[in-house]
């Protein structure tokens, strides 16, 4: 039977299909090669190297402060560089700035949307950024005058085409990095609202991001619903490394304090450690008894401890080197949704769906 296509069209179609199939084979070969190269350097496990290190003793960590005031689930929090102030955001649209020492509320803003999933403190301590279902990231300068209406000074900076999942100022008040349910991350100029760089590569919602410690240079890591953690070059917009070992959404990523590695927390109930110079996963923090997802992770100052906030209301504390759990903390009455260690490492703060925040030390 003769092909319905005219001879010219027939010759155009065939090379296209060949090229596609050709590229597919090439990509499969490259993926295999990548795995091989990574496997060649897998000469030992992290916990084996750490066998000679002294084990950690008993930990006495308890709730030292409880911050009450949110009317609904706390979704996100961030510390101010002054090590005492905290900004938190919740499902009911409220963003609150607290003095964690005294538990007093210093500022409160009501956002025009619910589910404020992201909030961040500016390095200067003079502003906060937040956003969520409004698909935007807005910056509010913090006034010393308690009576001043913060909402009036609001500045819209970022615009995505889906929800804002995370935001972070870079090392100045002038730029903000955002991640979104639209599958992208973006870098914005705060003053002009201009998009400086966008980061494409995730195949689904991006849920979290973390900037590399300033000494390490201009990179950041993001995690998403595609189970991937990507490391990006902020200047070029290029994805420089990608890790796909989790079995479900990655809810949280955090750099190791030296900048040479990062940890991730996922709905697959595990936390994992990826070393950037070995270019692979080097540890998994899991237990058969832990079956609920991890919402947030952070390291202690030296990187020896990894704190994970879980959907089963607990906090598990892991020995990063040995791979074992050193403590389990109870207190919240619903999911732990956010967790950050203070800038000087003296305490960590958790936020929960039980409407409260707790400071642990």
């Amino acid at each position: 039977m003769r092909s319905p296509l005219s001879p010219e069209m027939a010759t155009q179609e065939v090379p296209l299909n060949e090229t596609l199939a050709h590229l597919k084979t090439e990509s499969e070969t490259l993926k295999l090669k990548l795995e091989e190269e990574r496997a060649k350097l897998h000469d030992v496990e992290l916990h084996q190297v750490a066998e000679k290190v002294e084990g950690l003793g008993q930990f006495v960590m308890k709730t030292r402060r409880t911050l009450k005031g949110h009317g609904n689930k706390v979704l996100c929090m961030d510390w101010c560089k002054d090590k005492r102030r905290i900004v938190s955001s919740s499902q009911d649209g409220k963003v609150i700035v607290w003095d964690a020492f005294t538990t007093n509320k210093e500022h409160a803003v009501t956002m025009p949307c619910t589910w404020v999933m992201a909030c961040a403190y500016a390095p200067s301590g003079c502003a906060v950024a937040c956003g969520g279902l409004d698909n935007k990231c807005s910056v509010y300068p913090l006034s010393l005058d308690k009576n001043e209406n913060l909402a009036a000074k609001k500045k819209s900076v970022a615009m995505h085409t889906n929800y804002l999942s995370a935001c972070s100022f870079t090392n100045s008040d002038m730029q903000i990095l955002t991640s979104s349910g639209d599958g992208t991350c973006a870098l914005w100029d705060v003053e002009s609202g201009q998009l400086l760089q966008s980061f494409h590569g995730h195949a689904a919602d991006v849920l979290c991001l973390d900037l590399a410690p300033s000494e390490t240079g201009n990179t950041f890591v993001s995690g998403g619903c595609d189970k991937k953690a990507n490391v990006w070059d902020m200047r070029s917009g290029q994805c420089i490394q990608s890790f796909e070992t989790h079995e479900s959404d990655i809810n949280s990523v955090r750099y190791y304090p030296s900048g040479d590695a990062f940890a991730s927390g996922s709905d697959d109930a595990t936390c994992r450690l990826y070393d950037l110079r070995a270019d692979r996963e080097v540890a998994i923090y899991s237990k058969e008894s832990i079956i609920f997802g991890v919402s947030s992770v952070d390291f202690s100052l030296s990187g020896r401890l990894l704190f994970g906030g879980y959907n089963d209301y607990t906090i598990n504390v892991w020995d990063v080197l040995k791979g074992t759990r050193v403590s389990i903390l109870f207190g919240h009455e619903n999911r732990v949704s956010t967790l950050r260690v203070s800038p000087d490492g003296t305490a960590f703060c958790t936020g929960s769906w039980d409407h409260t925040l707790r400071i642990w030390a």
Partner: protein
Amino acid sequence: MTSNSSLSNMRRLVEQLKLEASVERIKISQAAAELQQYCLQNASKDALLVGVPTGSNPFREPRSCKEIKRIFDLLQRKKTWT
């Protein structure tokens, strides 16, 4: 049109994989040793790991003590005026 976009997507994927394959890597033994070294070097400064002398962690000082102290101070001052 869809075959064109899937073609450019595949091209981008291949380029990305080539870039990732070209990354310089070190052995896990070396990477692990350096992670461990960082931990040990900074352990003494890690308050959550080793604890700090009593009184120097502002969060460990209970809020109620501060309030009681403040009230005492106020009462002391009131005494000296009367």
